[in-house]
Protein backbone atom coordinates (compact mmCIF):
# COMPACT_ATOMS: atom_id res chain seq x y z
CA UNK A 1 0.00 0.00 0.00
CA UNK A 2 2.84 2.39 0.76
CA UNK A 3 4.26 1.87 -2.73
CA UNK A 4 2.30 4.69 -4.32
CA UNK A 5 2.61 8.31 -3.37
CA UNK A 6 1.75 11.77 -4.65
CA UNK A 7 4.43 14.31 -5.53
CA UNK A 8 3.79 16.46 -2.46
CA UNK A 9 4.33 13.40 -0.27
CA UNK A 10 7.87 12.94 -1.58
CA UNK A 11 9.75 14.54 1.36
CA UNK A 12 7.93 12.17 3.74
CA UNK A 13 8.80 9.16 1.61
CA UNK A 14 12.46 10.27 1.50
CA UNK A 15 12.64 10.50 5.28
CA UNK A 16 10.97 7.15 5.75
CA UNK A 17 13.46 5.57 3.38
CA UNK A 18 16.31 7.01 5.39
CA UNK A 19 14.83 5.68 8.62
CA UNK A 20 14.48 2.23 7.08
CA UNK A 21 18.12 2.36 5.90
CA UNK A 22 19.36 3.32 9.35
CA UNK A 23 17.31 0.56 10.89
CA UNK A 24 18.78 -2.09 8.59
CA UNK A 25 22.28 -0.63 9.12
CA UNK A 26 22.00 -0.91 12.89
CA UNK A 27 20.59 -4.39 12.59
CA UNK A 28 23.30 -5.66 10.23
CA UNK A 29 26.32 -3.86 11.69
CA UNK A 30 25.34 -3.77 15.33
CA UNK A 31 25.85 -0.01 15.48
CA UNK A 32 23.29 1.89 17.57
CA UNK A 33 21.52 4.54 15.51
CA UNK A 34 18.44 4.65 17.73
CA UNK A 35 18.98 8.28 18.72
CA UNK A 36 19.24 9.30 15.10
CA UNK A 37 16.25 7.16 14.20
CA UNK A 38 14.13 8.77 16.91
CA UNK A 39 15.18 12.19 15.70
CA UNK A 40 14.19 11.34 12.12
CA UNK A 41 10.86 9.93 13.29
CA UNK A 42 10.05 13.16 15.03
CA UNK A 43 11.10 15.08 11.95
CA UNK A 44 8.91 12.87 9.74
CA UNK A 45 5.91 13.46 11.99
CA UNK A 46 6.42 17.21 11.99
CA UNK A 47 6.76 17.09 8.23
CA UNK A 48 3.54 15.09 7.78
CA UNK A 49 1.70 17.52 9.96
CA UNK A 50 2.98 20.63 8.24
CA UNK A 51 2.84 19.28 4.69
CA UNK A 52 -0.77 18.18 4.90
CA UNK A 53 -1.92 21.33 6.62
CA UNK A 54 -0.56 23.44 3.80
CA UNK A 55 -2.11 21.58 0.87
CA UNK A 56 -4.15 23.37 -1.76
CA UNK A 57 -7.72 22.24 -2.37
CA UNK A 58 -6.60 20.49 -5.52
CA UNK A 59 -3.93 18.58 -3.60
CA UNK A 60 -6.55 17.71 -0.99
CA UNK A 61 -8.67 16.33 -3.82
CA UNK A 62 -5.76 14.19 -4.97
CA UNK A 63 -5.24 12.99 -1.42
CA UNK A 64 -8.94 12.05 -1.20
CA UNK A 65 -8.40 9.96 -4.34
CA UNK A 66 -5.06 8.57 -3.19
CA UNK A 67 -4.56 5.11 -4.73
CA UNK A 68 -3.55 3.70 -1.33
CA UNK A 69 -6.41 5.28 0.60
CA UNK A 70 -8.63 2.73 2.39
CA UNK A 71 -11.90 1.94 0.60
CA UNK A 72 -15.28 0.98 2.03
CA UNK A 73 -14.49 -2.74 2.15
CA UNK A 74 -11.22 -2.01 3.98
CA UNK A 75 -13.06 -0.11 6.70
CA UNK A 76 -15.77 -2.74 6.87
CA UNK A 77 -13.22 -5.51 7.42
CA UNK A 78 -11.18 -3.46 9.91
CA UNK A 79 -14.11 -2.04 11.91
CA UNK A 80 -16.72 -4.78 11.97
CA UNK A 81 -17.12 -8.51 12.60
CA UNK A 82 -19.19 -11.07 10.72
CA UNK A 83 -19.88 -8.89 7.70
CA UNK A 84 -22.37 -10.62 5.44
CA UNK A 85 -22.45 -9.02 2.02
CA UNK A 86 -25.87 -8.96 0.36
CA UNK A 87 -26.32 -8.59 -3.36
CA UNK A 88 -28.66 -7.34 -6.02
CA UNK A 89 -31.47 -4.85 -6.50
CA UNK A 90 -34.11 -7.55 -7.23
CA UNK A 91 -34.97 -5.76 -10.48
CA UNK A 92 -32.09 -5.97 -12.88
CA UNK A 93 -28.68 -6.79 -11.47
CA UNK A 94 -25.97 -6.41 -8.90
CA UNK A 95 -23.84 -3.29 -9.17
CA UNK A 96 -20.28 -3.85 -7.98
CA UNK A 97 -19.62 -0.17 -7.38
CA UNK A 98 -21.83 -0.27 -4.31
CA UNK A 99 -21.40 -2.90 -1.61
CA UNK A 100 -23.68 -3.50 1.31
CA UNK A 101 -24.60 -5.93 4.01
CA UNK A 102 -25.06 -6.62 7.70
CA UNK A 103 -22.26 -6.66 10.23
CA UNK A 104 -21.54 -6.38 13.91
CA UNK A 105 -20.03 -3.10 15.04
CA UNK A 106 -19.33 -3.20 18.76
CA UNK A 107 -22.68 -4.01 20.40
CA UNK A 108 -24.84 -3.25 17.36
CA UNK A 109 -25.92 -5.15 14.27
CA UNK A 110 -25.69 -2.51 11.59
CA UNK A 111 -26.30 -2.29 7.88
CA UNK A 112 -23.26 -0.88 6.12
CA UNK A 113 -23.52 0.37 2.55
CA UNK A 114 -20.72 2.03 0.64
CA UNK A 115 -19.29 2.91 -2.73
CA UNK A 116 -16.42 0.62 -3.61
CA UNK A 117 -13.45 1.48 -5.83
CA UNK A 118 -10.89 -1.04 -7.03
CA UNK A 119 -7.24 -1.31 -6.10
CA UNK A 120 -5.59 -2.84 -9.19
CA UNK A 121 -6.68 -2.45 -12.77
CA UNK A 122 -8.69 -5.66 -12.80
CA UNK A 123 -10.58 -4.75 -9.66
CA UNK A 124 -10.99 -1.16 -10.82
CA UNK A 125 -12.76 -2.46 -13.91
CA UNK A 126 -14.83 -4.89 -11.85
CA UNK A 127 -15.89 -2.00 -9.60
CA UNK A 128 -16.39 0.29 -12.61
CA UNK A 129 -14.00 2.76 -10.94
CA UNK A 130 -16.53 3.25 -8.17
CA UNK A 131 -19.15 4.72 -10.51
CA UNK A 132 -22.49 3.04 -9.76
CA UNK A 133 -25.23 2.05 -12.16
CA UNK A 134 -28.86 2.62 -11.11
CA UNK A 135 -28.92 -0.95 -9.76
CA UNK A 136 -26.38 0.09 -7.14
CA UNK A 137 -28.65 2.79 -5.75
CA UNK A 138 -31.65 0.46 -5.86
CA UNK A 139 -29.69 -2.22 -4.02
CA UNK A 140 -28.73 0.39 -1.42
CA UNK A 141 -32.37 1.38 -1.00
CA UNK A 142 -33.46 -2.24 -0.68
CA UNK A 143 -30.92 -2.74 2.08
CA UNK A 144 -31.96 0.45 3.86
CA UNK A 145 -35.59 -0.71 3.91
CA UNK A 146 -34.41 -4.10 5.12
CA UNK A 147 -32.54 -2.38 7.95
CA UNK A 148 -35.62 -0.34 8.79
CA UNK A 149 -37.78 -3.44 8.93
CA UNK A 150 -35.55 -4.94 11.61
CA UNK A 151 -34.80 -1.69 13.40
CA UNK A 152 -31.08 -1.75 12.63
CA UNK A 153 -29.01 1.42 12.23
CA UNK A 154 -27.55 2.25 8.82
CA UNK A 155 -24.02 3.44 8.10
CA UNK A 156 -23.12 4.64 4.62
CA UNK A 157 -19.57 5.20 3.38
CA UNK A 158 -19.29 7.64 0.47
CA UNK A 159 -16.46 7.33 -2.03
CA UNK A 160 -17.26 7.77 -5.71
CA UNK A 161 -16.25 9.98 -8.62
CA UNK A 162 -19.98 10.07 -9.45
CA UNK A 163 -22.83 7.99 -10.83
CA UNK A 164 -21.88 6.33 -14.12
CA UNK A 165 -22.81 8.30 -17.23
CA UNK A 166 -23.59 5.59 -19.77
CA UNK A 167 -26.30 4.48 -22.17
CA UNK A 168 -27.58 1.63 -20.00
CA UNK A 169 -27.52 3.79 -16.90
CA UNK A 170 -29.74 6.37 -18.61
CA UNK A 171 -32.06 3.72 -20.04
CA UNK A 172 -32.58 2.23 -16.61
CA UNK A 173 -33.16 5.58 -14.94
CA UNK A 174 -29.99 6.77 -13.22
CA UNK A 175 -31.69 10.05 -12.30
CA UNK A 176 -34.77 8.33 -10.94
CA UNK A 177 -32.69 5.92 -8.88
CA UNK A 178 -30.82 8.78 -7.22
CA UNK A 179 -33.96 10.87 -6.70
CA UNK A 180 -35.80 7.88 -5.23
CA UNK A 181 -33.07 7.35 -2.66
CA UNK A 182 -33.20 11.02 -1.64
CA UNK A 183 -36.94 10.93 -0.94
CA UNK A 184 -36.90 7.47 0.62
CA UNK A 185 -33.99 8.27 2.90
CA UNK A 186 -36.19 11.05 4.28
CA UNK A 187 -38.63 8.36 5.45
CA UNK A 188 -36.36 5.70 6.96
CA UNK A 189 -37.15 5.36 10.66
CA UNK A 190 -33.79 4.03 11.86
CA UNK A 191 -30.60 6.05 12.48
CA UNK A 192 -28.59 6.85 9.34
CA UNK A 193 -24.96 7.87 9.73
CA UNK A 194 -23.21 9.08 6.59
CA UNK A 195 -19.41 9.19 6.36
CA UNK A 196 -17.54 10.63 3.39
CA UNK A 197 -14.38 8.50 3.39
CA UNK A 198 -12.78 9.63 0.13
CA UNK A 199 -14.38 11.27 -2.85
CA UNK A 200 -17.93 12.56 -2.44
CA UNK A 201 -18.76 12.95 -6.13
CA UNK A 202 -21.99 14.88 -6.71
CA UNK A 203 -25.42 13.24 -6.94
CA UNK A 204 -23.83 9.83 -7.16
CA UNK A 205 -22.52 10.32 -3.61
CA UNK A 206 -25.54 12.20 -2.26
CA UNK A 207 -27.78 9.25 -3.19
CA UNK A 208 -26.36 7.55 -0.08
CA UNK A 209 -25.98 10.80 1.80
CA UNK A 210 -29.23 11.78 3.51
CA UNK A 211 -28.45 10.98 7.14
CA UNK A 212 -29.08 12.06 10.71
CA UNK A 213 -25.37 12.69 10.89
CA UNK A 214 -23.08 13.56 8.00
CA UNK A 215 -19.41 13.17 8.85
CA UNK A 216 -16.27 13.55 6.78
CA UNK A 217 -12.85 12.06 7.17
CA UNK A 218 -10.40 14.93 7.37
CA UNK A 219 -8.83 14.39 3.95
CA UNK A 220 -11.96 13.55 2.01
CA UNK A 221 -13.75 15.92 -0.36
CA UNK A 222 -17.43 16.39 -1.23
CA UNK A 223 -18.54 18.44 -4.19
CA UNK A 224 -21.34 19.31 -6.58
CA UNK A 225 -19.02 18.54 -9.50
CA UNK A 226 -15.43 17.34 -9.89
CA UNK A 227 -12.78 20.03 -10.34
CA UNK A 228 -12.14 18.51 -13.79
CA UNK A 229 -15.79 18.81 -14.82
CA UNK A 230 -16.05 22.31 -13.42
CA UNK A 231 -12.89 23.45 -15.20
CA UNK A 232 -14.13 22.04 -18.49
CA UNK A 233 -17.50 23.78 -18.23
CA UNK A 234 -16.78 27.13 -16.57
CA UNK A 235 -13.21 27.75 -17.69
CA UNK A 236 -13.60 25.77 -20.91
CA UNK A 237 -10.08 24.58 -20.14
CA UNK A 238 -9.37 21.17 -18.60
CA UNK A 239 -6.08 22.44 -17.20
CA UNK A 240 -7.78 24.85 -14.79
CA UNK A 241 -8.44 22.12 -12.21
CA UNK A 242 -6.51 23.91 -9.46
CA UNK A 243 -8.57 27.06 -9.86
CA UNK A 244 -11.77 25.01 -10.03
CA UNK A 245 -10.93 23.05 -6.87
CA UNK A 246 -10.15 26.31 -5.04
CA UNK A 247 -13.43 27.88 -6.15
CA UNK A 248 -15.58 24.85 -5.31
CA UNK A 249 -14.67 24.79 -1.58
CA UNK A 250 -14.84 21.02 -1.33
CA UNK A 251 -12.67 20.11 1.68
CA UNK A 252 -13.92 18.91 5.05
CA UNK A 253 -13.14 22.30 6.65
CA UNK A 254 -15.06 24.09 3.89
CA UNK A 255 -18.11 21.90 4.35
CA UNK A 256 -18.01 22.23 8.10
CA UNK A 257 -17.94 26.01 7.78
CA UNK A 258 -20.85 25.88 5.31
CA UNK A 259 -22.90 23.88 7.80
CA UNK A 260 -23.24 20.88 5.52
CA UNK A 261 -21.47 18.35 7.76
CA UNK A 262 -21.65 17.72 11.49
CA UNK A 263 -18.11 16.65 12.21
CA UNK A 264 -14.63 16.28 10.75
CA UNK A 265 -12.95 13.01 11.70
CA UNK A 266 -9.23 13.58 12.22
CA UNK A 267 -7.00 11.17 10.32
CA UNK A 268 -3.67 9.82 11.60
CA UNK A 269 -0.56 11.82 10.74
CA UNK A 270 0.07 11.79 7.01
CA UNK A 271 -3.45 10.70 6.14
CA UNK A 272 -5.60 7.56 6.27
CA UNK A 273 -3.46 5.73 3.70
CA UNK A 274 -0.36 5.99 5.96
CA UNK A 275 -2.15 4.10 8.69
CA UNK A 276 -5.41 2.44 7.64
CA UNK A 277 -5.79 0.43 10.85
CA UNK A 278 -5.51 3.49 13.05
CA UNK A 279 -7.99 5.33 10.82
CA UNK A 280 -10.47 2.47 11.09
CA UNK A 281 -10.03 2.54 14.88
CA UNK A 282 -10.76 6.25 15.01
CA UNK A 283 -13.77 5.86 12.73
CA UNK A 284 -15.14 3.00 14.83
CA UNK A 285 -14.94 5.09 18.00
CA UNK A 286 -16.69 8.01 16.30
CA UNK A 287 -19.43 5.75 14.96
CA UNK A 288 -19.92 4.21 18.39
CA UNK A 289 -20.48 7.66 19.89
CA UNK A 290 -23.07 8.59 17.24
CA UNK A 291 -24.76 5.19 17.44
CA UNK A 292 -25.09 5.59 21.20
CA UNK A 293 -26.75 8.96 20.73
CA UNK A 294 -28.99 8.05 17.83
CA UNK A 295 -30.23 4.66 19.00
CA UNK A 296 -31.87 6.30 22.00
CA UNK A 297 -33.95 8.64 19.82
CA UNK A 298 -37.53 7.52 18.97
CA UNK A 299 -38.01 6.58 15.27
CA UNK A 300 -40.44 9.43 14.62
CA UNK A 301 -37.97 11.96 15.93
CA UNK A 302 -35.17 10.48 13.85
CA UNK A 303 -37.18 11.08 10.69
CA UNK A 304 -38.17 14.56 11.82
CA UNK A 305 -34.62 15.49 12.75
CA UNK A 306 -33.21 14.25 9.44
CA UNK A 307 -35.79 16.18 7.45
CA UNK A 308 -35.20 19.33 9.46
CA UNK A 309 -31.46 19.06 8.92
CA UNK A 310 -31.77 19.08 5.13
CA UNK A 311 -34.63 21.57 5.13
CA UNK A 312 -32.25 24.18 6.50
CA UNK A 313 -29.44 23.78 3.99
CA UNK A 314 -28.62 26.63 1.65
CA UNK A 315 -27.57 30.26 1.72
CA UNK A 316 -29.76 33.04 0.35
CA UNK A 317 -31.02 36.47 1.25
CA UNK A 318 -34.54 37.76 1.65
CA UNK A 319 -36.07 41.17 1.92
Amino acid sequence: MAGQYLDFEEPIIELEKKIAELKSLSKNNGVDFSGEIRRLHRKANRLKDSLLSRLTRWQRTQLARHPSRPYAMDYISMMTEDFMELHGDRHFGDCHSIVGGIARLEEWSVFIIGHQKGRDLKEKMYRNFGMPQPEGYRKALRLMKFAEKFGKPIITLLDTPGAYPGIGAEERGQAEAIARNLIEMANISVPIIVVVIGEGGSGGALALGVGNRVLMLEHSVYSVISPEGCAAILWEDCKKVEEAAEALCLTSDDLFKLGVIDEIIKEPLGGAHRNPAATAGILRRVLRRHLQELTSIPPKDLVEQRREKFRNMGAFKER
Partner: protein
Amino acid sequence: MAWFIRSKTPKEKLKVKKINIPEGLWLKCDSCKEIIYKTELDRNFRVCPKCSFHHRMNAYERIILLTDDESFVEKDTGIYPEDPLRFRDVKRYKERLKTYTKKTGIKDAVVCGEGTLNGRNVQICAMEFGFMGGSMGSVVGEKITRAIERAVNKKNPFITVSCSGGARMQEGILSLMQMAKTSVALAQLSEAKVPYISVLADPVTGGVTASFAMLGDVIIAEPGALVGFAGPRVIEQTIKQKLPEGFQRAEFLLEHGMIDMVVHRKELKNIIDKLLTLLR
Protein backbone atom coordinates in the same frame (compact mmCIF):
# COMPACT_ATOMS: atom_id res chain seq x y z
CA MET B 1 -44.20 38.04 -25.11
CA ALA B 2 -40.46 37.91 -25.22
CA TRP B 3 -38.84 35.84 -27.89
CA PHE B 4 -35.48 35.83 -29.54
CA ILE B 5 -33.56 33.85 -32.07
CA ARG B 6 -30.25 32.32 -31.20
CA SER B 7 -28.24 32.23 -34.39
CA LYS B 8 -25.40 29.85 -35.05
CA THR B 9 -23.39 32.02 -37.40
CA PRO B 10 -23.16 35.75 -37.93
CA LYS B 11 -24.24 35.21 -41.52
CA GLU B 12 -27.43 33.56 -40.40
CA LYS B 13 -28.04 36.40 -37.99
CA LEU B 14 -27.81 38.88 -40.82
CA LYS B 15 -30.27 36.94 -42.89
CA VAL B 16 -32.76 36.69 -40.05
CA LYS B 17 -32.34 40.32 -39.23
CA LYS B 18 -33.08 41.29 -42.80
CA ILE B 19 -36.28 39.31 -42.69
CA ASN B 20 -37.28 40.69 -39.32
CA ILE B 21 -36.45 44.33 -39.72
CA PRO B 22 -39.46 45.49 -41.72
CA GLU B 23 -42.21 44.36 -39.33
CA GLY B 24 -40.60 42.14 -36.67
CA LEU B 25 -43.39 39.73 -37.43
CA TRP B 26 -41.52 36.72 -38.73
CA LEU B 27 -39.07 34.26 -37.32
CA LYS B 28 -37.40 31.06 -38.27
CA CYS B 29 -38.25 27.71 -36.63
CA ASP B 30 -35.30 26.33 -34.66
CA SER B 31 -36.04 22.87 -35.98
CA CYS B 32 -37.41 22.92 -39.54
CA LYS B 33 -35.95 26.38 -40.35
CA GLU B 34 -39.21 27.39 -41.98
CA ILE B 35 -40.27 31.01 -41.66
CA ILE B 36 -43.19 31.35 -39.24
CA TYR B 37 -45.50 34.24 -38.55
CA LYS B 38 -44.77 35.31 -34.96
CA THR B 39 -48.34 35.78 -33.84
CA GLU B 40 -49.15 32.38 -35.28
CA LEU B 41 -46.36 30.85 -33.18
CA ASP B 42 -47.56 32.62 -30.04
CA ARG B 43 -51.14 31.61 -30.68
CA ASN B 44 -49.92 28.05 -31.10
CA PHE B 45 -48.20 28.05 -27.65
CA ARG B 46 -44.83 28.55 -29.34
CA VAL B 47 -45.17 25.23 -31.10
CA CYS B 48 -44.11 25.39 -34.76
CA PRO B 49 -47.25 25.05 -36.91
CA LYS B 50 -45.16 23.43 -39.66
CA CYS B 51 -43.17 20.77 -37.74
CA SER B 52 -44.64 20.79 -34.20
CA PHE B 53 -41.28 21.65 -32.67
CA HIS B 54 -41.85 22.94 -29.12
CA HIS B 55 -39.91 26.20 -28.82
CA ARG B 56 -38.72 27.07 -25.35
CA MET B 57 -41.05 29.15 -23.19
CA ASN B 58 -39.96 31.38 -20.35
CA ALA B 59 -41.18 30.77 -16.81
CA TYR B 60 -44.08 33.24 -16.95
CA GLU B 61 -45.28 31.90 -20.30
CA ARG B 62 -45.33 28.47 -18.66
CA ILE B 63 -47.47 29.74 -15.83
CA ILE B 64 -49.83 31.55 -18.20
CA LEU B 65 -50.15 28.30 -20.14
CA LEU B 66 -51.15 26.27 -17.08
CA THR B 67 -53.14 28.69 -14.89
CA ASP B 68 -56.40 30.50 -15.43
CA ASP B 69 -56.29 34.13 -16.59
CA GLU B 70 -55.19 36.55 -13.89
CA SER B 71 -55.36 33.87 -11.21
CA PHE B 72 -51.64 33.57 -10.58
CA VAL B 73 -50.13 35.21 -7.51
CA GLU B 74 -46.37 35.00 -7.36
CA LYS B 75 -44.83 34.07 -3.99
CA ASP B 76 -41.45 34.46 -2.33
CA THR B 77 -40.34 37.21 -4.69
CA GLY B 78 -38.13 38.65 -1.98
CA ILE B 79 -35.67 35.74 -1.98
CA TYR B 80 -32.48 36.42 -3.87
CA PRO B 81 -29.11 34.69 -4.17
CA GLU B 82 -26.02 35.41 -2.16
CA ASP B 83 -22.55 34.27 -3.03
CA PRO B 84 -21.61 31.94 -0.17
CA LEU B 85 -18.36 30.70 -1.76
CA ARG B 86 -17.38 34.06 -3.29
CA PHE B 87 -17.16 32.01 -6.41
CA ARG B 88 -15.11 33.17 -9.31
CA ASP B 89 -14.28 31.41 -12.55
CA VAL B 90 -13.51 33.49 -15.61
CA LYS B 91 -16.21 35.77 -14.25
CA ARG B 92 -17.43 36.48 -10.74
CA TYR B 93 -20.65 34.71 -9.73
CA LYS B 94 -21.94 38.09 -8.49
CA GLU B 95 -21.41 39.53 -11.96
CA ARG B 96 -23.18 36.62 -13.61
CA LEU B 97 -26.12 37.06 -11.27
CA LYS B 98 -26.38 40.73 -12.21
CA THR B 99 -26.20 39.96 -15.91
CA TYR B 100 -28.91 37.31 -15.77
CA THR B 101 -31.18 39.36 -13.53
CA LYS B 102 -30.98 42.13 -16.07
CA LYS B 103 -31.56 39.76 -18.95
CA THR B 104 -34.53 37.90 -17.49
CA GLY B 105 -36.00 40.42 -15.06
CA ILE B 106 -36.10 37.84 -12.27
CA LYS B 107 -33.73 37.22 -9.35
CA ASP B 108 -33.09 33.52 -9.87
CA ALA B 109 -34.03 30.55 -12.01
CA VAL B 110 -37.53 29.74 -10.78
CA VAL B 111 -40.92 31.46 -10.53
CA CYS B 112 -43.27 30.08 -7.87
CA GLY B 113 -46.74 30.91 -6.73
CA GLU B 114 -50.35 29.90 -6.52
CA GLY B 115 -53.16 30.14 -8.98
CA THR B 116 -56.10 28.21 -10.32
CA LEU B 117 -56.10 25.55 -12.99
CA ASN B 118 -59.61 25.26 -14.44
CA GLY B 119 -60.88 26.69 -11.18
CA ARG B 120 -58.95 24.54 -8.72
CA ASN B 121 -56.19 26.00 -6.55
CA VAL B 122 -52.70 24.79 -7.34
CA GLN B 123 -49.15 25.57 -6.26
CA ILE B 124 -46.95 25.90 -9.30
CA CYS B 125 -43.22 26.38 -9.94
CA ALA B 126 -41.77 27.04 -13.38
CA MET B 127 -38.05 27.09 -14.01
CA GLU B 128 -36.40 29.77 -16.12
CA PHE B 129 -33.77 28.31 -18.41
CA GLY B 130 -32.69 31.80 -19.42
CA PHE B 131 -31.33 32.37 -15.91
CA MET B 132 -27.99 30.53 -15.79
CA GLY B 133 -29.37 27.55 -17.66
CA GLY B 134 -32.14 27.09 -15.11
CA SER B 135 -29.56 25.86 -12.64
CA MET B 136 -30.58 25.03 -9.07
CA GLY B 137 -28.81 26.82 -6.26
CA SER B 138 -30.02 27.77 -2.79
CA VAL B 139 -32.74 30.14 -4.02
CA VAL B 140 -34.32 27.62 -6.38
CA GLY B 141 -34.16 24.95 -3.67
CA GLU B 142 -35.70 27.21 -1.04
CA LYS B 143 -38.49 28.52 -3.28
CA ILE B 144 -39.47 25.05 -4.44
CA THR B 145 -39.38 23.79 -0.86
CA ARG B 146 -41.64 26.63 0.29
CA ALA B 147 -44.05 25.94 -2.56
CA ILE B 148 -44.19 22.28 -1.50
CA GLU B 149 -44.85 23.34 2.08
CA ARG B 150 -47.69 25.61 0.94
CA ALA B 151 -49.08 22.70 -1.06
CA VAL B 152 -48.96 20.54 2.08
CA ASN B 153 -50.60 23.16 4.30
CA LYS B 154 -53.31 24.17 1.85
CA LYS B 155 -53.75 20.70 0.35
CA ASN B 156 -53.23 22.22 -3.09
CA PRO B 157 -51.96 20.00 -5.91
CA PHE B 158 -48.33 20.75 -6.70
CA ILE B 159 -47.04 21.30 -10.24
CA THR B 160 -43.48 21.88 -11.41
CA VAL B 161 -42.30 22.69 -14.90
CA SER B 162 -38.63 21.77 -15.00
CA CYS B 163 -36.19 23.17 -17.53
CA SER B 164 -32.69 23.05 -16.16
CA GLY B 165 -29.08 22.08 -16.72
CA GLY B 166 -28.83 20.81 -13.12
CA ALA B 167 -27.23 21.95 -9.89
CA ARG B 168 -25.51 25.33 -9.94
CA MET B 169 -21.73 24.94 -9.70
CA GLN B 170 -21.21 28.45 -8.35
CA GLU B 171 -22.82 27.56 -5.03
CA GLY B 172 -20.82 24.36 -4.71
CA ILE B 173 -21.96 21.78 -2.20
CA LEU B 174 -24.92 23.95 -1.16
CA SER B 175 -26.41 23.44 -4.63
CA LEU B 176 -25.98 19.69 -4.30
CA MET B 177 -27.82 19.81 -0.99
CA GLN B 178 -30.83 21.43 -2.68
CA MET B 179 -31.45 18.07 -4.34
CA ALA B 180 -31.84 16.50 -0.91
CA LYS B 181 -33.78 19.47 0.45
CA THR B 182 -36.44 19.47 -2.28
CA SER B 183 -36.75 15.67 -2.23
CA VAL B 184 -37.11 15.59 1.55
CA ALA B 185 -39.88 18.20 1.27
CA LEU B 186 -41.62 15.98 -1.28
CA ALA B 187 -41.64 13.17 1.28
CA GLN B 188 -43.96 15.37 3.37
CA LEU B 189 -46.13 16.13 0.34
CA SER B 190 -46.45 12.43 -0.32
CA GLU B 191 -47.44 11.76 3.29
CA ALA B 192 -50.09 14.47 3.05
CA LYS B 193 -51.44 12.63 -0.03
CA VAL B 194 -51.34 15.75 -2.15
CA PRO B 195 -50.81 15.04 -5.86
CA TYR B 196 -47.60 16.15 -7.54
CA ILE B 197 -47.46 16.55 -11.31
CA SER B 198 -43.97 17.01 -12.75
CA VAL B 199 -43.73 18.47 -16.25
CA LEU B 200 -40.41 18.13 -18.09
CA ALA B 201 -39.55 20.69 -20.75
CA ASP B 202 -36.45 20.61 -22.91
CA PRO B 203 -33.90 20.19 -21.37
CA VAL B 204 -33.80 18.66 -17.88
CA THR B 205 -30.51 17.16 -16.79
CA GLY B 206 -28.29 16.60 -13.74
CA GLY B 207 -29.36 17.49 -10.25
CA VAL B 208 -32.87 18.60 -11.15
CA THR B 209 -33.68 15.33 -12.94
CA ALA B 210 -32.01 13.44 -10.09
CA SER B 211 -34.27 15.07 -7.51
CA PHE B 212 -37.75 16.62 -7.64
CA ALA B 213 -38.29 16.40 -11.41
CA MET B 214 -38.32 12.58 -11.40
CA LEU B 215 -40.41 12.30 -8.24
CA GLY B 216 -43.82 13.31 -9.61
CA ASP B 217 -46.80 11.06 -8.98
CA VAL B 218 -47.29 11.65 -12.66
CA ILE B 219 -44.41 12.70 -14.91
CA ILE B 220 -45.27 14.35 -18.20
CA ALA B 221 -42.70 15.38 -20.81
CA GLU B 222 -43.10 17.66 -23.78
CA PRO B 223 -42.46 16.07 -27.18
CA GLY B 224 -38.76 15.87 -28.02
CA ALA B 225 -37.61 17.15 -24.60
CA LEU B 226 -34.11 16.02 -23.63
CA VAL B 227 -34.27 14.42 -20.20
CA GLY B 228 -31.40 12.64 -18.49
CA PHE B 229 -28.99 12.40 -15.63
CA ALA B 230 -25.77 12.97 -17.55
CA GLY B 231 -25.72 15.30 -20.52
CA PRO B 232 -25.19 13.65 -23.93
CA ARG B 233 -21.73 15.20 -24.33
CA VAL B 234 -20.50 13.77 -21.04
CA ILE B 235 -21.81 10.33 -21.99
CA GLU B 236 -20.18 10.47 -25.43
CA GLN B 237 -16.85 11.45 -23.88
CA THR B 238 -17.11 8.65 -21.31
CA ILE B 239 -18.11 5.78 -23.58
CA LYS B 240 -16.28 7.16 -26.61
CA GLN B 241 -19.03 6.41 -29.06
CA LYS B 242 -21.86 8.26 -30.75
CA LEU B 243 -25.23 8.13 -29.08
CA PRO B 244 -28.19 6.59 -30.88
CA GLU B 245 -30.77 8.80 -32.55
CA GLY B 246 -33.47 9.96 -30.14
CA PHE B 247 -31.45 8.94 -27.06
CA GLN B 248 -32.67 10.69 -23.88
CA ARG B 249 -35.60 12.27 -25.69
CA ALA B 250 -39.08 12.26 -24.15
CA GLU B 251 -40.27 9.43 -26.41
CA PHE B 252 -37.21 7.35 -25.44
CA LEU B 253 -37.95 7.87 -21.75
CA LEU B 254 -41.57 6.86 -22.27
CA GLU B 255 -40.42 3.69 -24.02
CA HIS B 256 -38.06 2.90 -21.13
CA GLY B 257 -40.71 3.36 -18.49
CA MET B 258 -39.30 6.52 -16.96
CA ILE B 259 -42.25 8.86 -17.58
CA ASP B 260 -46.02 8.48 -17.82
CA MET B 261 -46.76 10.39 -20.99
CA VAL B 262 -45.56 12.71 -23.71
CA VAL B 263 -48.05 15.53 -24.12
CA HIS B 264 -48.35 18.27 -26.72
CA ARG B 265 -48.25 21.68 -25.14
CA LYS B 266 -51.75 22.64 -26.19
CA GLU B 267 -53.13 19.59 -24.34
CA LEU B 268 -51.05 20.06 -21.22
CA LYS B 269 -53.45 22.07 -19.08
CA ASN B 270 -56.41 19.83 -19.86
CA ILE B 271 -54.46 16.63 -19.22
CA ILE B 272 -53.34 17.92 -15.81
CA ASP B 273 -56.90 19.01 -15.07
CA LYS B 274 -58.24 15.56 -15.93
CA LEU B 275 -55.64 13.87 -13.76
CA LEU B 276 -56.32 16.11 -10.79
CA THR B 277 -60.06 15.65 -11.18
CA LEU B 278 -59.68 11.88 -11.18
CA LEU B 279 -57.42 12.01 -8.16
CA ARG B 280 -59.75 14.18 -6.11
